[in-house]
């Protein structure tokens, strides 16, 4: 049993501490600093966030996605075939992203996230898992002006991102996470999704994690277990129904237990986390349990995100001790 995060982390500290990342973007837009200097600021903030997650006691971390404008743009602007357009609401959140528009054939031109992964690995006290936005979600949140049908668009993205996953594995990533919240808003696309997953993970030698969030998998379960991945991450906050859904068939994967509310400042307790771990241990073996927040933590102010991770780590430690 270990503690982990799902992805993003707040980029700026709570006021009055200065938000270097935010100030950096303003300076970059005014032309007061160079893109290289901005990368330097992102490096510093990433190292700070990695240290903060380690101090909180999280076992497996991400780089906090400090360099991501959002989950779509970060990959779409690295791939060939996309241009980036107007602001769209990100699912049912008050977060907006710039919508990628596919205007040509999707091609992988070279590593997008590998240098960031290598930097994070070199600067993290804890193991780092890279995160990649999955082909279905990327397609659903984009606009297609080239392929003309979702199947071809998704499969092209899967083939392109397959190269990215291979590059991450070659750079030393032992565990790679692919995020597919879009599956929960387009449940009827499960067959397409599973074909895409086959292409996406082809020849990738790493532990394969698939994360969904913002809802439950009722209607997708147990069919989702046929997806070629090792870990399935589920949201047990927005998708509290998952507790009941998972009882309907034996859970044959490792479980990402998203139990701390990443979208509300209300603080969980260590006991509640430990209790959820015990409950999940009835579904999978404790050694197959990866406990974390329900989604990326950038929906929260920094202080609250850090506190949630402290509660998470303490709850997981308590559950481990109880099990021992």
């Amino acid at each position: 049993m270990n503690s982990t995060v799902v992805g993003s982390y707040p980029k700026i500290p709570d006021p009055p501490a200065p938000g270097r990342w935010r100030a950096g973007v303003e300076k970059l837009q005014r032309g007061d600093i160079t893109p290289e200097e901005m990368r330097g600021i992102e490096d510093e903030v990433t190292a700070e966030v990695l240290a903060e997650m380690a101090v909180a006691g999280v076992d497996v971390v991400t780089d906090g996605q400090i360099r991501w404008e959002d989950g779509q743009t970060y990959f779409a602007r690295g791939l060939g075939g996309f241009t980036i357009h107007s602001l769209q609401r990100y699912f049912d959140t008050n977060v907006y992203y710039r919508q990628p528009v596919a205007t040509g054939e999707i091609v992988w031109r070279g590593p997008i996230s590998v240098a960031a992964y290598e930097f994070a690995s070199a600067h993290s006290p804890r193991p780092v898992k890279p995160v990649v936005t999955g082909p279905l979600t990327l397609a659903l949140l984009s606009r297609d002006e080239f392929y003309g049908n979702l199947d071809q668009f998704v499969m092209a993205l899967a083939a392109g991102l397959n190269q990215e996953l291979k590059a991450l594995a070659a750079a030393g990533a032992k565990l790679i996470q692919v995020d597919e919240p879009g599956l929960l808003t387009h449940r009827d696309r499960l067959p397409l999704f599973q074909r895409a997953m086959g292409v996406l993970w082809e020849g990738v030698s790493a532990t394969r994690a698939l994360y969904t969030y913002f809802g439950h998998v009722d209607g997708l379960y147990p069919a989702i277990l046929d997806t070629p991945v090792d870990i399935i991450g589920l949201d047990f906050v927005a998708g509290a129904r998952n507790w009941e859904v998972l009882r309907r068939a034996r859970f044959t994967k490792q479980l990402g237990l998203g139990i701390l509310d990443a979208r509300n400042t209300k603080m969980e307790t260590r006991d509640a986390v430990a209790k959820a771990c015990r409950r999940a241990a009835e579904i999978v073996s404790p050694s197959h349990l990866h406990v974390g927040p329900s989604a990326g933590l950038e929906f929260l102010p920094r202080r609250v995100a850090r506190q949630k991770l402290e509660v998470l780590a303490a709850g997981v430690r308590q559950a481990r001790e109880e099990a021992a």
Partner: protein
Amino acid sequence: MTAQPLLTTTVGSFPKPPYLLEARRKLARKQLEQEELEALERRATEEWIRRQEEIGMDILVDGEMYRGDMVAYFADQMDGFAIAGMVRSYGNRYYPKPAVVRPVGRRAPVTVGWWKFAQGLTPRPVKGMLTGPYTIAEWSFNEHYPTRRELVLDLARAIHDEAVDLERAGARYIQIDEPAIHTRPDEDFDLAVEAMEIVTRGLRAYTITHVCYGDVPRIYPAMLRLAVNQIDLALKNDDFALLETFRSPRFTKDIGLGVLDAHSHRVETADEVVEGIRRTLKVIPLEQVYVTPDCGLKTRTVEETVGKLTSMAEGTRRMREELSR
């Protein structure tokens, strides 16, 4: 409401002049007293009232010189909220997101003092400007209420009391902004409708709700159930594409027709405004149309704002003349 068609108004916020931005920074650094800031806010408000009169706007706003964020402004003055911290909305835009930690309610009127001040400066009507319950709830963390529904309905009762106080003070136009109303329409648009019924219940004032961006076709025609006289919408930024949606079923409310892109630096021409209104009149009857910018103009400069509104007033005047011939 009136013999004159195509009344002009604005969505609420105007840019703060440089001297006021500087004063706000000084206040944050404790180099300025609150009363000194308020004096400058009154000065800036009066400047905007005069500009609107000079441009020839029919229904005025106070420009919100004293507001920062549209939700935090209410949260700061109401019971039940704590400011949780800064949260990113996109790019490097952050907003102070409040957390509901106790039952919400009003301690005292929130907007009435500023409304009275602004209305005292002009014989033309000044709109009362409120943020709607659904949006306040959606843009806050909820640490207290077991369900969002309970939070939204408590907020609706508080905002209703505020609307009643505005009306008693003399407000003839009351706007309740709901930019978050289409966040999860499949799940709880009925709740947004129920909340608006509570807010406007028994009011005699002309009521408006402003809904911006997001997927408006997804809440059409359901949004026609909102208990307001007028729905104010952004048309210009998508080149009036929404008119296709409003062909069928028919748009049964008055419309606040956004004819200026609030997020573009370009100053539209009067011809563009005429063209926008003309296209609209093929879909929505004249007596239902009010002319406005797409959204609050606070992110524009003072010059851009004056330029845009001047074109809007000029285009509207030409359209009225054309129609009266």
